């Protein structure tokens, strides 16, 4: 019952914790791009992947996310990893020709092993990245960050504030619901429910005895919250000021440039070989990058203008 703290905001005071939420969202996306983009050869894939893994591992250490917790969460993935290996072995990727070894009549190709390793590496890095974001960013800041990115949509009457508010309430209640889960599990354990062992039917019953009270109390809570918000005159359409203002600091600028450069670098690398023959890919990706930068600058201006008005 103790691993429920996974992915929760943990209040340390690290460099990453102090970063602007908007910037962190950008960096997450940029690093995800770097992780998921495909490279021309397996050598480059694993060199870049390894470098990214080291970099992200350093980020983990800086942000005080417990590496042990991450490995715990990966345990769930074991089944998936094995399945992946099996599928790749029996249905080798296209163009596989280097046989590593043979099991009876089945040839196991190096390509199949590399392919699986690549997917696993990507998965682990993706989980680590999201974990860094959620562990270092207050849920509320995260939603403010999201709302900021949605600002332009407000111009076309998209309910950005309502969406952000909904997300932030949902996020706010995750720890509460986890506590509630813990409490109900304890109460049912006292009545002899065994959540970890037992036959399938008993396990199903155990889960029912947890889910029903959990839902009931969640509905009750949401009703109470809605009532109390209304009682205090909450109006989603009203213009509001904010207690907490996101600030883009010098550190943010540095990390923004660093991660931005990293992403551009991997994109260019990804098409290094191609670019010798068909140079047309580099400009395309540069264009996308430039668009992202312009979008961010534009949103900043719109937001500043709205705040002044």
């Amino acid at each position, binding site marked *: 019952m*103790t691993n429920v*703290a996974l992915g929760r905001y*943990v*209040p*340390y005071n690290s460099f990453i914790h102090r970063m602007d939420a908007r910037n962190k969202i950008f960096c997450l996306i940029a690093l995800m791009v770097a992780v998921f983009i495909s490279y021309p050869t397996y050598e480059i894939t694993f060199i870049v992947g390894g470098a990214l893994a080291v970099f992200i591992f350093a980020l983990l250490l800086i942000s005080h996310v*417990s590496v042990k917790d991450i490995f715990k969460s990966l345990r769930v993935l074991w089944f998936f990893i094995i399945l992946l290996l099996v599928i790749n072995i029996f249905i080798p990727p296209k163009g596989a020709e280097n046989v590593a070894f043979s099991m009876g009549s089945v040839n196991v190709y190096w390509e199949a092993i590399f392919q699986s390793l690549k997917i696993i590496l990507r998965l682990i890095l993706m989980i680590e990245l999201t974990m860094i974001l959620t562990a270092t960013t207050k849920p509320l800041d995260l939603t403010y960050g999201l709302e900021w990115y949605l600002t332009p949509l407000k111009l076309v009457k998209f309910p950005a504030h309502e969406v952000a508010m909904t997300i932030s309430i949902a996020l706010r209640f995750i720890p509460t619901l986890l506590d509630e889960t813990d*409490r*109900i599990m*304890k*109460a*049912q*354990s*006292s*009545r*002899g*429910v*065994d959540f*970890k*062992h037992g036959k399938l039917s008993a396990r199903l019953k155990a889960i*029912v*005895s947890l889910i*029903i*009270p959990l839902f*009931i*109390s969640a509905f009750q809570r949401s009703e109470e919250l809605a009532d109390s918000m209304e009682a205090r005159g909450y109006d989603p359409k009203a213009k509001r000021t904010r207690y907490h203002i996101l600030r883009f600091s010098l550190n943010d600028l540095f990390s923004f440039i660093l991660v931005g450069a990293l992403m551009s670098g991997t994109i260019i690398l990804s098409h290094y070989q191609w670019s010798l023959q068909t140079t047309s890919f580099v400009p395309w990706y540069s264009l996308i990058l430039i668009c992202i930068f312009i979008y961010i600058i534009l949103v900043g201006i719109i937001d500043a203008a709205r705040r002044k008005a």
Partner: protein
Amino acid sequence: MPINFKNVFYTYSEKTPFRHEALKGVSLTINDGSFTCIVGHTGCGKSTLIQQLNGLLIPTSGSVDVNEYHIEKKNKSLKKLHDLRKEVGVVFQFSEYQLFEETIEDDVAFGPMNFGMKKEDVLKIAHECLKTVGIPEDYYKKSPFEISGGEKRRVAIAGILALQPKTLVLDEPTAGLDPRGTKYILDLFKKLNEQGTTIVFVTHDINIVYEYATDVIVMNEGKVVLQTVPEKLFAEDVEQYSLETPLIQKTVNLLQAKGMKLDVSKIRSLEDLVKEIAEARK
């Protein structure tokens, strides 16, 4: 066998910034057949303490002995804890939120069935337990979600009674009940106690301690400040433990100040007081 805590420490969310040391070296004994009350102000670790009694929480360090079970961090086999939970029944604070079955009788029967009893036998026990907590018969087939909060609490208590535990642990079971409901439930526990069940009772109500307890444990900030019998506790100035003086004792003190001769050792409840006053006025 008595329940024994040996230098028990418990820390929530260890090795994270949420780390909270809730128990700081608790040693105590709960005797068989006693009605032990645990008092102390909000957040002093009472609920944490009682969760050690049936292995829901395992001490961070130190050990707990309950009957033949030795609970220690090094030594946890879940199978054994499952059996322990039949012997030590815990009724939680806000226990009304644990109900989930379609009917009240099924919900009460849920516990014993988890310990391998047959449905027909269990339903009989369930009906008895519902009767003892004062739920009328026409409620048995109702949904637990369409009854009042106080009734839910009683059903939850019945759900634990149905396990027929040797030790019954109750975390503020009377909070939010009306005075008559409180008295009814308390007298029920007293009767069970007289029939041999050990009762461990967490409460904020000093009057309950005065009237029902055979043993008292006073806690403060994760430590046991005092373990004694009520006679000794109330002979002292209880306010030094930031407890209130019980109403009956206050009355006795006032009457004695006015010169009435009362035998304090005989007075535990309101009826005793009335009897003693009548005696004194003869």
